[in-house]
């Protein structure tokens, strides 16, 4: 066999391998998608196929009309936006100070921050509960916002500090020599340069709040106070009960914004995160 033929056969095999693997990887999502569209609801039928014979949007309609998903969405958005504003508002100046200024205690604080980053907030959930409950903050949005802001404050400070480190300080020095004020310097030069990291950090905070369920289900008790994640958690079909088609429709609805954000930011993701040296 000639070398070229051999090469072609190899390429065909590799392509086949990838087609199989890609399909295999997507099966759980495709299955959920197909179930959510299937009009016959014949889950137990032996003739399941990925393309339902009769399609329906009934399950999606049920998600929006029978379940308080819009209320959960509103709750999630409020939590996300407030957490975002506080984390960025406190994080940006702090990250800038830690990147640009040298002062006693800086190294020690940075070291402590790395260690805190390794600490799963789940482990202090009990203590947080015990601390928030006498203040009447359990089952309130404020309570969850406090927890989320603390967790994200460490991430925001550390991630953005890493990015500020990569911006050459000479740019600012040049502007200072040109007579720019401190305020002008920050709003006119530093912030525009830091846009990628601010965008990625903001996205990571939104995604975190969007996906966080364990604090939400333990700290919130009524289904009208649930976030999207907690709500979806409560919708799941168990072995015995629950509607799997409606659940799969709800899952896909909840995932869609995250998917869009992920693929839109995929390029920024690597630069905005890797330079900070942490993965979200």
């Amino acid at each position, binding site marked *: 066999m000639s070398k070229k033929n051999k*090469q072609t056969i190899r*390429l065909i095999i*590799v392509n086949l*391998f*990838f087609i199989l*693997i*890609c399909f295999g*990887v*997507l*099966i*759980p*999502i495709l299955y*959920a998608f197909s179930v959510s569209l299937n009009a016959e609801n014949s*889950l137990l039928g032996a003739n399941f196929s990925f393309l339902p014979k009769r399609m329906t949007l009934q399950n999606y309609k049920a998600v929006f009309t029978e379940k308080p998903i819009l209320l959960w969405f509103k709750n999630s958005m409020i939590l996300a936006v407030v957490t975002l504003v506080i984390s960025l508002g*406190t*994080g940006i100046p*702090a990250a*800038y*100070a830690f990147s640009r*200024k040298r*002062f*006693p205690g800086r190294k020690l604080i940075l070291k402590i921050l*790395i*260690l805190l980053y*390794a*600490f*799963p*907030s*789940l*482990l*202090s959930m*009990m*203590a947080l509960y015990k601390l928030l409950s006498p203040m009447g903050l359990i089952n309130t949005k404020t309570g969850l916002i406090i927890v989320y*802001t*603390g*967790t994200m*404050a*460490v991430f*925001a*400070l550390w991630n953005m500090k890493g990015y500020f480190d990569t911006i050459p300080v000479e740019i600012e020095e040049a502007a200072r020599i040109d007579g720019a004020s401190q305020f002008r310097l920050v709003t006119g030069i530093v912030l525009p340069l830091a846009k990628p990291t601010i965008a990625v950090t903001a996205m990571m905070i939104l*995604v975190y709040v969007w*996906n966080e*369920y*364990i604090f939400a289900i*333990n700290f919130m008790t009524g289904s009208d106070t649930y976030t999207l*994640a907690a709500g*979806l*958690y409560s919708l*799941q*079909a168990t*072995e015995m009960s629950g509607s*799997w088609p409606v*659940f*799969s429709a709800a*899952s896909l609805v*909840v*995932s869609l914004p995250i*998917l869009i954000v992920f693929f839109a930011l995929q390029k920024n993701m*690597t630069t905005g995160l890797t330079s900070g040296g942490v*993965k979200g």
Partner: protein
Amino acid sequence: MKKQQHTDREKKKIRRETLSAYGQSLPSLLLILLIVIFPIIYTGYISLTNMNVYHWNNYELIGLENYKDALLVFDNGFLTALFVTILWTIVNMVLQLVIAYGIAMLLNTKGLRLRNVYRTLLIFPWAMPGYVSILLWKTGMYNSQFGLLNQWIQKLGGEPVRWLGSNVLAFISCTVVNLWLALPFMITIIDGALQSLDKSFYESAVLDGATWLEQTRYITIPMIKPIIAPSVLITTFTTFKQFDIIYLLTQQVGAKTGADIHTILTYAYEKAFITNNYGYSSAISILIFGMLLVFSMLTSAKSREEV
């Protein structure tokens, strides 16, 4: 005298810079101190008490009793959970690295035109919200009545399997889900590292008659190692700290599947929120935190040596 003035001014400048730095970072540091550090210290305090559901307010200090219970009484389950966690981390990391390396190598096959299409499809699981994927796996794939796996088995004439019903099978099922979730990131990292390699090394190796295996062993792996090391390290930490997969698949409240595997994190959670043994659970939390501290100090010391 003049010099004295000079250093005075210098000192003033340092003081001013310190003040403004702390001024700028005060809100952020205060948040971290109050919401992150203080609860950890408080957890440490609770771990020295007998706080539980009967002693929610009238608890008392009992010294290191909880730590003794965790570390010396084997039947309490902490040591088993620790063992499972270590096994889980090793199995998952080895499989992840081997599979991701294989797939990344194949993605770099010369002349593979659809490379980017495959890559995009393969990173799909990374883009999905993790807990949603886990729940979809739980119901869609593993459910013993209408899960896809059992539908296939039944079609082939087999008996339905309770995938999450026994320890070993549940461990394997959880590993599959973890690989599904984690491989996209690892493939991306290794693929990126492979792309950055200088191809000329291979040309001379081929001239010297090196086989594919020799090339892999002596060129590829040593060259990508420093590039992927930080990501591998971070992934090892996340694998060690894994909670969602095992909790959501096997031990949700009211929906336990029968398997009894615990990682240290699900163990700490169960002791706090299911059996309500707060003091004991806090001791577990502090032990885990201690382990993570030691790991991250060791690894950061090591990476500093290498740089």
